[in-house]
């Protein structure tokens, strides 16, 4: 089974980037799909959500049907170039068909033991592990990403109880797509990436920093180093506690990152459990016209009207539904995760987890967008519009806590969202760096 219904998707993307011929009209238009009940520009709310109940994840359905969430319907993106960073799409096309899983389950170049060479390794995943490889090896689809994040944490009262400013930096050492000298960075053999997260506000968390060093071998846990302001020094931490909030009130866990926050072989029982159309956010959520790329004008819903962003959802013609279980984490509070991957660009447009009783627990909804709005755009080094995640809704429905992230232009501490910056490694991704970031 491959992506595409009428014809294979990826040859079309390779030829013209236009996916229209791969799917019938009813999978490319919400109006056609719902036989006119809904159309682009309409708002999904409690009054009409039943029409699309099967096209959204169960927690999104709960949010709309019971908590006042609104979702705006927008046209399906048919130009694949709007669904990727330029270099990543180019590498994906160039390297199609070259990936294989070795006997351990790691991705290698077919017929060799070489680490993957960049882009989505399995554009037509045939099993759950291949699907997970697509979201694990390169999280942000850039060789280096720095995200400036405005975080709002809403409690059971509906009030914003906590706010943090969070910086996130990830840099791959293999699977590179924009590196002039090839897919690997010299001197980092055996490593997949360095990734750090640090808090720049408020005062009591400022300087709290963690550095994850990922090995390429996905059976191994990352090395974790942390700088806690109270200790004034970097210490090495165990890394298996990936299902805990990092700071009070937040619902984000390390395990949640990109729906693939843990090395993929520390989970098991990966499987594809379904395919079909789905609604998800893939466009129009970058607000370059707003101060600091704010989305406050979109906030609504919840008990106090300040919980959700009004997101643009489009009919994604084909998603691959995959599941995995945390077999490497026997005491994890999670029993299973289910992810909806958009077949066009293999990003997780919906992701839910289940507790140990099998009850649905949390959702982690990522909205993606090309960073272009009218005549405004955030451009890469070659003048192409950048692409990234734009917002995150993380909802613990059992604890009734909700976290929303907005990808901001900048946050306190002078951190700016940027991609492929040359000196990110020295500034943010070493033990020395996280000590320096602390204060």
């Amino acid at each position, binding site marked *: 089974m491959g992506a595409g219904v009428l014809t294979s998707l990826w040859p079309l993307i390779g030829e013209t980037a236009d996916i229209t011929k791969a799917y019938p009209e009813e999978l490319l238009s919400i109006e056609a799909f719902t036989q006119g009940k809904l159309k682009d520009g309409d708002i999904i709310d409690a009054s009409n959500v039943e029409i699309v109940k099967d096209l959204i994840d169960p927690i999104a359905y709960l949010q709309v049907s019971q908590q006042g969430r609104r979702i705006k319907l927008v046209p399906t993106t048919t130009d694949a170039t709007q669904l990727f960073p330029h270099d990543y799409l180019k590498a994906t096309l160039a390297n199609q068909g070259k990936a294989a899983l070795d006997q351990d389950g790691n991705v290698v170049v077919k017929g060799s033991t070489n680490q993957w060479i960049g882009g989505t390794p399995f554009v037509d995943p045939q099993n759950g592990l291949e699907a997970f490889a697509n979201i694990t090896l390169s999280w942000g689809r850039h060789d280096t990403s720095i995200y400036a994040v405005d975080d709002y944490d809403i*409690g059971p009262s509906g*009030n914003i*109880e*906590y*706010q943090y400013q969070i910086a996130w930096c990830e840099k791959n050492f293999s699977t590179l797509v924009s590196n002039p000298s090839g897919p690997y960075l010299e*001197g*980092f053999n055996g*490593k997949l990436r360095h990734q750090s997260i640090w808090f*720049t*506000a*408020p*005062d*009591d968390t*400022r300087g709290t920093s963690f550095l994850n060093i990922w090995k390429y071998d996905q059976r191994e*846990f990352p*090395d974790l180093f942390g700088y806690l*302001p*109270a*200790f*004034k*020094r970097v*210490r*090495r*931490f*165990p*890394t*298996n*506690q990936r299902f*805990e*909030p990092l*700071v*009070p*009130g*937040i619902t984000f866990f390390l395990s949640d990152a990109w729906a693939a926050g843990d090395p993929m072989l520390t989970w098991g029982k990966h499987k594809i459990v379904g395919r079909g159309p789905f609604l998800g956010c893939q466009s129009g959520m970058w607000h370059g016209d707003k101060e600091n790329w704010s989305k406050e004008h979109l906030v609504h819903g919840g008990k106090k009207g300040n919980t959700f962003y009004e997101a643009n959802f489009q009919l994604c013609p084909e998603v691959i539904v995959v599941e995995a279980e945390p077999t*490497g*984490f*026997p*005491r*994890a*509070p999670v029993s299973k995760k289910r992810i909806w991957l958009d077949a066009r660009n293999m990003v997780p447009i919906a992701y839910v987890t289940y*507790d*140990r009783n099998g009850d649905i627990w949390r959702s982690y909804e990522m909205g993606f967008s090309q960073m272009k709005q009218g005549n405004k755009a955030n451009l890469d080094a070659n003048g192409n519009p950048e692409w990234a995640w734009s917002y995150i809704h993380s909802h613990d429905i059992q*604890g009734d*806590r909700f976290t929303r992230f907005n990808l901001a232009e900048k946050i*306190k*501490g*002078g951190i700016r969202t940027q991609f492929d910056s040359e*000196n990110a490694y*020295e*500034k943010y991704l*070493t*033990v*020395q*760096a996280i*000590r*320096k970031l602390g*204060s």
Partner: protein
Amino acid sequence: MKKTTTLTKLPAIFSAGLLAMPAAHAVDVDVSGFIRQEMAYSISDDQNPMNRGTAAVSGTVPNTTGGADFIKKDFDYDNDWNMMATRAEVNFTIGISENVKAFVKVRGFYSADVFNDVSVENGAKDVNQFRVDQHGKCASIFEVCDDDFMIDLPSAYIDYSEGDLWVRFGVQQIAWGEAIFFRVMDVPNGLDLRRHTFLDLASEEYADERISSPAIRVSYNLNSNWEVETFAQMFQPSVLPQSGTAYSIINSPFRVRNDIGFDKVDDKINVGVRLVGQLGDLGLQFMATARHNPDPIFKWGPGGQTALDPAFAALGTFSDQPFRSTGSPGAVGALNSGTYGGLDWMTSAHLMGVNGVEAINVLGQEFALIGNFLTASGYSGPDYVNSVAEGSLALDGFFTQLGDLEADIIPIYAAENVFGFGANYIFYSEPDTWLDQLVVRFEMTYTPDKKFSNNMSRNFIEEDEWVTGLVLEKYRRFSDAFPATFLVFQWMHKSESDLSGRHLSNLGGSPTKAPSGGEESGGWDAVSFAIQQPLPGLIWRLDMNVLYDLNGSYLIQPGVRYKPNRSWTIEGFASFLDSKDNAGALQPLAWADEVSLRLTYQF
């Protein structure tokens, strides 16, 4: 109210750093901070025996010479509150350019007048908590202070980074090593114990206490696994709780001559280098420092009371020896604020970890007048007295002639080299076993010819000291409903001294028995165990910290932290301390059972 300002050097430091600022670059300044009310309520019937108002010995003190007993006024102060303070900290994070950033933290601490002691200086019920004769009248170089408040700069530095190089220039704390609370490799900085000693939340370690000073710190990444770091830092001594304050650990009749002791080293620079890296799964650290030890050792100083020189001319020059009679001109302290009688002497000395008998011999050997007095009293040197009874008899003769006495002691900050090694390793085993992801850290330092206080002698004890620490850390989930529990076990061994650096040979005395030196054999050992249990959402956190000194003292500190929202944090914790005798490292604070509450608003 007299205030002392020593902020004059700050502009120079910053102007040097700001030279690197590109003229056209917009400076980005973020301001944040908090204000906090901190309070500690005593839950013990015991009071601090080092303070005159609650002295270990008071009332009628027997005079073993057969003369009239000594009457040491019993003030019997009963302090309910050990601390009632308001703290404010304001942080300025300044982005100057892509490679240059600055950070300034201003800390203000005001201590309300809830604690009374007899002022040694004037007999009134007030205390000086913050004035220290080091930099002007304050402890650190950028500090404004008076009896009841201090404002200082724990941080005021500029960071410059370029590629693998990172330079931090300015006032800063430097913390090395990975062991928490047990300071093995954490040797660059001393501690400022004037605020809440070390009885703050144990889980915060020494974040508030570690005392900063101007330094230049340079780090360079040799490659992706190894980093070399070096520093040169202006010497800054540790600051002990001031005499007469709630947590004082120096007996009130002693005046610590910081002005003399610190002046000898105020221009010294401590330097250090370390190499940190990974060798496969093994984390390694190697360090060497050449420093003046910020933790003081003490010797007697001349008392300078010339008024009694004529009266004692036959025995020598009275003012050359350490003691002053509070009843004669030239005394610093108020009348009847001194030590009075052999029993008082022995009791207080052994509480402090000073051999009260040997201290007499030291006095006889190093101060002519006292040697002559002892000889004239029928004692032969150099070991004039050999027991508490003999010593008390000799002392009682002295006190009979002079009344109660005060004395000067001089802190000495000895030069030493410290060499260290550390390693960490994370065990991987079958998931869900106790061994899986168990973090093991080991640290060790070696200080050749380290100097220790020797009963106030100018001839210090000098021995090689080994300090080792072993840390086991584990995160473990005990239920699906609660986040993982953080468990830490630590063991520390010191070959020659206890937790606060007192030589073991001088510990373990009592009012009737001198230290036998037996505490020295086998060194000093302590273990600690900490549990941290966050509740779902991390809004509540429960803490339990236990420190047990194998010499028989302990600290148990249960605590709870509640953070209901971004702005407010409430923390409550209790500290229970005890020691079976004076050999315990925590004996100086064994009286200090208390409940603490902190209410913080951050902005």
